[in-house]
């Protein structure tokens, strides 16, 4: 008897319009779980190294997990996995909403897309039935208009649609995929891969139900979560203020990226914080499938929500704009066109620094005044990027490629890791998070360690108590770079990898949420019927990270790719952390220690023994493991 998953993976070849199914066995599901685990498995197994991200042979994998769809808070996410057009390596991004559960109710656990359609199409999946539909009339439409048009055509408002906008069609390398207008697979440029395949959207609708091993136990845990999240300071704050609460805290602690990551304090922070947002706009709370936390704050009369923390910092402090109205407009535009707000904002900050240093001039921007603090040019620049107009075409390539085109030393302040733009977090104030951003397989990613280092500084810190079952028992300074910090990072990374393999929201279980690890294991048992343990699950999380790293190794990535932008090895210019920098020697030592703990060699390549330990020895041939 199978519980939790459908046992069916959908395969779609857009070149020859072939549709097929795969039915992996139980061991496969228990080994790879779903999401990041399943995506990295198929990507590594099937892709020829060196394939361009926009080549039809690139795979685009949408994956739910063995627990997605259970009526429990914070476990509804799905992963999209592909070769990233930003990094040329492993690409992955998660989104919440309703799309993941709907895919499960429609009878599938994942969809693997390959090939390229001759003309624009969208994929319609309804209760086990699969069709490729004409999307020529949809090409060019915004995310919202696409959703409306497809729902109108299929005549079902409950159809869940993951779509790209014009940015994905125009192959902007940081285009995203969006469901329900506010839930976004934002990172890794996966919307551009979808655009390269002439695939406008995947619409799913399912009326099936999910078989669970012990529905009563699952219900009990869901109730426990719903009852307790308001009592936990972290989830309580998320419920009340959402991620925008981060603006004030990061500003106070000197870690609010300002002026393209030169300073950590923005004098205008109070004008772009959650308080200003709540006092000046009609804010409603929205959320995801089966989740009462409703942490998404949306502006009631707008289509695409309200800016999250990352967007407030990207279009606020980091370009020195203290105008919330403009940030909301920028957020609306990016979401309408399908652009990742992090990469778009950081690309604009890069352009502003080019202007400040005299590398680019007003004439390069068709007369726009692109200076830090000048809000008037920002929305126009977003349009130019989404439609690749003028210099927008250069910025649409991401800051790594743009800095190569522009030259004149601009690579020194192109804020990216492995080609992916920095999220709005400064590693000079949190070493473990910085290490995580450097080693992340997708490039700059602030979510491989959650919560960040400051949560583990006090002797009796709540988050420290919550991860005691991992054997992390003592506090560590946020700037500590010793082996103890690497261990804290490594164990935390395994937890976060597990969340991605199972489609779990970071805000659900501890240490960033409320559900204790023990109860989480019981939840997995209740849904799947596995007699499992934290050990087995964390190993599955680690397996997914080693698979994605192996994908990068096969593509030729080495130790030099696990690095931070040069700016972080220089002193931060302002704020509480003024003068602090990352010491190169400390960073290299920590990297070596991390490789050692993970079972990687000095170049960051998984060893054969490590692959054997994780029971994925088949990977050894792919990366010539020793």
């Amino acid at each position: 008897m199978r519980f939790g998953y459908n046992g069916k993976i959908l395969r779609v070849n857009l070149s020859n319009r072939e549709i097929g199914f795969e039915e992996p066995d139980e061991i496969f599901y228990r080994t790879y779980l779903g999401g990041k685990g399943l995506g990295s498995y198929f990507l590594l197994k099937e892709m020829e190294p060196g394939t361009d991200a926009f080549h039809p042979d690139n795979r685009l994998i949408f994956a739910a997990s063995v627990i997605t769809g259970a009526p429990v808070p914070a476990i509804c996410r799905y992963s999209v996995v592909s070769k990233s057009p930003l990094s040329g390596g492993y690409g992955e991004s998660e989104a919440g909403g309703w799309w993941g559960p709907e895919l499960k109710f429609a009878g599938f656990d994942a969809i693997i897309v390959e090939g390229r359609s001759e003309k624009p199409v969208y994929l319609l999946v309804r209760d086990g039935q699969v069709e490729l539909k004409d999307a020529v009339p949809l090409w060019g439409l915004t995310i919202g208009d696409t959703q409306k048009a497809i729902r109108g055509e299929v005549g079902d408002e409950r159809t869940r649609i993951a779509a790209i906008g014009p940015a994905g069609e125009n192959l902007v390398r940081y285009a995203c995929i969006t469901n329900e207008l506010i839930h976004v697979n934002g990172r890794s440029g996966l919307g551009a891969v979808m655009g390269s395949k002439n695939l406008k959207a995947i619409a799913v609708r399912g009326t099936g139900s999910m078989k669970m091993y012990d529905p009563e136990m699952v219900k009990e845990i869901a109730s426990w979560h719903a009852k307790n999240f308001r009592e936990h300071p972290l989830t309580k704050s998320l419920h009340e203020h959402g991620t925008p609460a981060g603006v004030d805290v990061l500003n106070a602690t000197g870690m609010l990226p300002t002026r393209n990551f030169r300073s950590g304090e923005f004098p205008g922070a109070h004008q772009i914080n959650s308080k200003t947002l709540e006092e000046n706009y009609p804010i409603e709370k929205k959320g995801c499938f089966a989740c009462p936390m409703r942490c998404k704050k949306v502006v009631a009369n707008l289509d695409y929500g309200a800016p999250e923390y990352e967007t407030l910092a990207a279009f606020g402090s980091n370009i020195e704009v203290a105008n919330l109205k403009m940030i909301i407009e920028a957020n609306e535009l990016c979401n309408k066109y399908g652009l990742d707000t992090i990469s778009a904002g950081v690309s604009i900050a890069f352009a502003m620094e080019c202007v400040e240093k005299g590398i680019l001039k007003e004439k390069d921007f068709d007369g726009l005044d692109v200076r830090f603090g000048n809000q008037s040019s920002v929305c126009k620049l977003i349009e130019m990027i989404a439609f690749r107009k003028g210099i927008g075409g250069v910025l649409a390539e991401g800051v790594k490629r743009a800095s190569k085109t522009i030259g004149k030393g601009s690579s020194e302040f192109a804020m990216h890791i492995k080609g992916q733009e920095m999220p709005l977090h400064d590693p000079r104030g949190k070493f473990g998070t910085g290490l995580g951003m450097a080693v992340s397989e997708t490039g700059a990613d602030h979510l491989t360690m959650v919560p960040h280092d400051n949560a583990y500084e006090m002797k009796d810190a709540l988050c420290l108590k919550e991860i005691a079952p991992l054997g992390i028992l003592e506090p560590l300074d946020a700037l500590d770079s010793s082996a103890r910090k690497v261990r804290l990072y490594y164990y935390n990374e395994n937890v976060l990898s597990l969340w991605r393999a199972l489609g779990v929201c970071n805000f659900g279980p501890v240490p960033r949420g409320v559900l204790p690890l023990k109860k989480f294991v019981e939840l997995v048992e209740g849904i799947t019927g596995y007699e499992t343990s934290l050990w087995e699950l964390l190993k599955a999380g680690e397996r997914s990270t080693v698979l994605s790293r192996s994908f990068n190794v096969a593509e030729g990535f080495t130790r030099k790719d696990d690095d931070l932008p040069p700016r972080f090895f220089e002193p931060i210019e302002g704020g509480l952390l003024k003068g602090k920098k990352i010491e190169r020697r400390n960073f290299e030592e920590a990297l070596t220690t991390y490789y050692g703990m993970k079972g990687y060699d000095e170049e960051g390549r998984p060893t054969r023994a490590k692959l054997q330990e994780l029971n994925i020895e088949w990977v050894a041939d792919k990366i010539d493991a020793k």
Partner: protein
Amino acid sequence: MIRVTIRFYADLKERYSPGQEEGVVPLDLEEGSRVSEVFKELNIDDREIGFLLRDDEKVQKDAELRDGDLIHFFSFAAGG
């Protein structure tokens, strides 16, 4: 008696020093008091605290307070 000053930041300001623009609260304590006394006196929920600073130095709850100390209270540096 010793006099110490507590300064709250970000969301903690509203909660523990309402109406104080700068988030500052003066406090008189017995000599030999530790930082944990501040938690008791101001009824601070320690689950909300990320870290504490005395000047540039991080301190724990068991640190002994000195007359004239300025202790900065920060919550978790979260984000999204």
